[in-house]
């Protein structure tokens, strides 16, 4: 018998959406990994008079922006940043959500009620507004802090999912058996409950990557996320606003890369959900 991850991988590959998502995501990651070593520096400026706003062509495959910088190179570097932020933030968020969900689910009573009421209230404040409030005061937020902020505002849904699953499993025979054998609360949570709630966590985490990438691009577009000169996809769309009518390539390509990245992540997430819960297909 094959192991669970291998079997899951096969299930994903069997679905057209999953396969397309995996291939596209692998390509994007490869480009983000290798690109910066091959391409010119994303902050290198050409001659401002002759090389600004060049349309896509031989010298610059995707053209140049108003500061004569190579757009392809800026996109590749922005993509790398988006992927890192998305993956790290979503991972931290899922970790936090799983921890809170397991605690609430295994400790019935006051702790559970307090945690879940707080989560209800947190879910009621749209995530973007919390981030806007924080970033409006925290000028020039460092990248690790931005990643952490995105994680701290992204765990509520996961915690609810994990709690619901935990409560459902608490009464199952295998958990009772472990209790009867004298296993402690922590051991039951980590050894017996966690592996059984891994599926929804995996799905939520994958879909969370796409959400974070979109959110970061949006914050940067509003002038609050990643600051220039660091190249970012949302920042490129923001910079293009003054010139996009006459030089549309400055905004078309960075946006397309955001769509492609988020779409491939979500395709993988959807395929995961279907593979783990065939009823949802």
């Amino acid at each position, binding site marked *: 018998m094959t192991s669970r991850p291998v079997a899951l991988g096969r299930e994903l590959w069997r679905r*057209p*959406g999953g396969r397309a998502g995996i291939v596209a995501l692998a390509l994007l990651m490869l480009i983000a990994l290798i690109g910066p070593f091959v391409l010119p520096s994303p902050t290198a400026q050409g001659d401002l008079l002759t090389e600004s706003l060049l349309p896509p062509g031989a010298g610059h495959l995707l053209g140049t922006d108003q500061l004569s910088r190579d757009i392809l190179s800026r996109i590749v570097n922005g993509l790398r940043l988006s992927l890192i932020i998305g993956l790290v933030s979503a991972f931290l968020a899922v970790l936090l959500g799983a921890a809170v969900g397991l605690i609430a689910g295994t400790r019935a009573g006051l702790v559970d009620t307090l945690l879940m*009421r*707080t989560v*209800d*209230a*947190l*879910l*009621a*404040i*749209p*995530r*973007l*507004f*919390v981030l*806007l*409030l*924080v*970033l*409006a*005061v*925290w*000028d020039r937020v460092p990248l690790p802090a931005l990643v952490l902020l995105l994680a701290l505002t992204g765990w509520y849904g996961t915690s609810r999912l994990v709690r619901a699953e935990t409560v459902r499993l608490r009464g199952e025979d295998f958990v009772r058996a472990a209790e009867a054998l004298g296993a402690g609360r922590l051991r039951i949570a980590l050894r017996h409950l966690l592996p059984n709630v891994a599926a929804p966590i995996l799905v939520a985490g994958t879909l969370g990557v*796409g959400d974070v990438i*979109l959110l970061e*691009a*949006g914050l940067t*577009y*509003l*002038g*609050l996320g990643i600051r220039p000169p660091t190249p970012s996809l*949302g920042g490129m*769309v923001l910079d*293009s*606003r003054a010139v*996009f*009518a006459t030089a*549309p390539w400055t*905004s*078309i390509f*960075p*946006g397309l890369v*955001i*769509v*492609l990245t*988020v*779409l491939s992540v*979500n*395709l993988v997430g*959807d395929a995961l959900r279907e593979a783990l819960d065939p009823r*949802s*297909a």
Partner: protein
Amino acid sequence: MTWLARRALQAVVTALIALTLLFFLIRSLPGDPLAILSEDRPLTSEQVRDLQRRYQLDQPVGAQFTSFMGGALRGDFGTSIQYGRPVTQLVLERLPRTLLLGAAVLLINFTLGLWLGVQQALHRGRPLDRILTTLSLTGYAMPSFWLGLMLVLTFAVRLHWLPAAGSQDPGLDGSGGATLVLDRLRHLVLPALTLAAVSIASSMRYQRAAMLEALRQPFVVAARARGLTRDRVVWGHALRSALPSVLTLFGLWLPILVVGAVFVEQVFAWQGLGSLTAGAAAARDYPLLMGTAVVATAAVVTGSFVSDVLHSLLDPRARVE
């Protein structure tokens, strides 16, 4: 206590906890709003003290908290730094435009979105279902601000079919009713389409799932067996049983719309709450940002309450905790 009273109480408690969390979030931040305000215009210590008094930063935390909660409950969020006018007044001025945009998007999502979802369920697993799923997922993956710019580029800059920004043509002030209405509608098309495109995926997906569930029910099979036409069964029987659960979507949509409106209104210079929020964030206008955050939170809590109530009216089984 009746179900309705309990659900209403729960909504109020959620809103109060959310307000408390918002207040302490601001208090716990490392930055100093006054420092950012005075960044490019040095203030005398007298002016700083005056500002501190005006925004009650010289009071102890407890006093600030009671004053914040009291103000929030009375609908008083202080004065906007950027505009020098009461936050509540600004919010009320901008509200109608956002409601208009939101209503247009809800209309598209509730009609087109549900119809497409039904088509997907009827063609489950076939090319039409696949194509629609891919399209809606692509819409969901689009940054709304970028899609907005692309639509402006196509329909305003290149084709000159529709206006690029604003919500009315200032040159039409003296014109008659029909011209004005048409002008408003023309301005509404692109922002509404943008917001609908990025949010329609969730209604399609929900409707597809609810419809598939309904089509499996014995009474649907029985209706078909009695010789009713396919259309009659789909639109009369199955859709009717699928609708209540789809209504809960309303609560799910509001956060998406509220957040989407911030970007879309900013792109189209649509004078609503979203662009007010985006402008407040850019200008570090703290009281104003707090005011719009509270309005957004209230909208989410109310939306989920209303959708629960609607759901329970249509399907009493939903009245369990």
